[in-house]
């Protein structure tokens, strides 16, 4: 795996390391453009962003990046088919109104998609629910139930089930705990978050 020299959030580092150099990339929920800048500067990618917060869009513009203020739930429909090699959705799937539709849109717009999300079946989350009977507040899910933007919690098993149902092909999966990669064994217990590389069946292997 090719390391990126700037310090990225662990899931972004996994994504950055596996995007082909020179690819055309759409980063949905691009934030302040950290991943976009890394992909542009270190991988020579042609990167575009979609981001809901205007301050973040302004931060992207200030770095010479191109980002459009918009909402993944409503605006992905405006992007043409197969306009990108990759569509990236990092830590955003669980905040969308219809994650399944967003997922389909990602694979319409991008030939491949990277999706990362916090795993709601991590043992610490399970233990909060089981022993304390409380909605979990953890390092990766730091906000109380009434204020969290995460409206569709999911587990690694849920996600695998959804992509199987939709006939989406998993080309890669990475699991993270304590900011490091872990082995896939018992990932649905041990992983705090997961990164998947997806493609529609019939897309040539990368």
């Amino acid at each position, binding site marked *: 795996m090719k390391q990126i020299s700037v310090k990225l959030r662990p899931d972004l580092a996994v994504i950055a390391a596996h995007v082909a150099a020179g690819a055309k990339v759409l980063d949905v929920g691009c934030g302040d453009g950290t991943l976009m800048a890394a992909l542009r500067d270190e991988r020579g990618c042609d990167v575009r962003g979609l981001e809901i917060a*205007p301050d973040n869009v*302004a931060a992207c513009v200030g770095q010479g990046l191109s980002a459009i203020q918009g909402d993944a739930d409503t605006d992905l429909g405006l992007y043409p088919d197969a306009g990108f090699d990759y569509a990236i959705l990092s830590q955003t799937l669980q905040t969308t109104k219809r994650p399944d539709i967003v997922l389909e849109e990602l694979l319409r717009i991008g030939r491949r998609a990277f999706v990362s999300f916090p795993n709601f079946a991590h043992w610490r989350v399970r233990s909060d629910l089981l022993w304390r009977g409380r909605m979990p507040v953890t390092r990766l899910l730091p906000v109380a139930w009434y204020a969290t933007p995460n409206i569709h919690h999911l587990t690694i098993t849920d996600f695998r089930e959804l992509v199987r149902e939709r006939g989406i092909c998993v080309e890669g999966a990475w699991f993270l705990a304590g900011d490091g990669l872990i082995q896939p064994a018992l990932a649905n217990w041990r992983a705090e978050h997961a990164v998947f590389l997806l493609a529609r069946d019939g897309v040539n292997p990368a």
Partner: protein
Amino acid sequence: MASLFTPCSETYDLPAPLPLDGGQSLDNVRIAYETYGTLNADASNAILICHATTGDQHVASPHPITGKPGWWDKMVGAGKQIDTERFFVICPNVLGSCMGTTGPGSLAADSKPYGLRFPVITIRDMVRAHMLLLDHLGVERLYAVIGGSMGGMQALSLSVNWPDRVERVLALATTAAMPVQNIAFQEVGRQAIMADPDWQQGAYYDTGRAPDAGLAVARMAAHITYLSEATLSEKFGRRLQDRDAKSFGFGADFQVESYLRYQGSSFTGRFDANSYLYITRAMSYFDLGEERFGAGHNRRLSEAFAGVKARFCVVSFDTDWLYPTSESRKIAHAVNAAGAPVSFMELAAPFGHDSFLLDVPALDRVIGGFLSR
């Protein structure tokens, strides 16, 4: 009247007739313009700023009639976001206007003012004149073109019709096709001017009379559309003007009435009524898709942007109801679908359409950032 608008900027007389979208051509066109900063050796640091409807070339220098600072003085200058230490900034007065560039108040071949003999022009005609000025100044390729409102229309038109001549496009509070509501408001303004008996079918220049009353009403109506409900409420509310009670007459009882009357009457001292007719006409005709494919085309806006080579930044303001965010979003997604790099954001600002001219720190950051690399 025409003498009020004596050019005081640099001027360039086009060496050949200017062809127009209406099919005619215009002889002896003069372009008045201001420049700031220095063009570098490889002519790679030029920025064209396109002014709005009733704006002018005095973007960062005092207005010759009102004496007020340039209309974007806060943005353009040494060390400012559009840094004249780094960039060579060009701001021409648009074709059809009255600040030194040829317009309906200029003299025709018979040494009399054109009046309504002046041909109807388009936004692209204005840009065509800008391009000839750039040739004259030795600028083949702009670092950026920047414009708000009608200036944004010019910026978009330039990017689509002269794609090799610009690297960056900054379009603020604008549209790719004049929305019907704006066409309607501008028709009110033109009718106010033409209903004024002093308008005299546009041939008022040597009569000692001018349609000041009509032009003032046009300005009052337009001025409302540049503001927001929030601005009007905060600035004036329902407060009365220098009086404790309503007069039960038709004087300017309310502060907002007094303010609009002042805006209207002061405007007549600096702007020509016929120019107002021609420029608003050009705006109402503006449709980028039609510029590219002709009237009655059935193409999508993204196709109009096919082949553009610039990087775009499109900005709207949340209180602008004249050129609302939906217009800017359409532009952004069309550019995006055409494959060109584009940023778009809606900034929060209380001032309505005029926000792009006023104090909005977030806009400063966006402009500085966009031009930085």
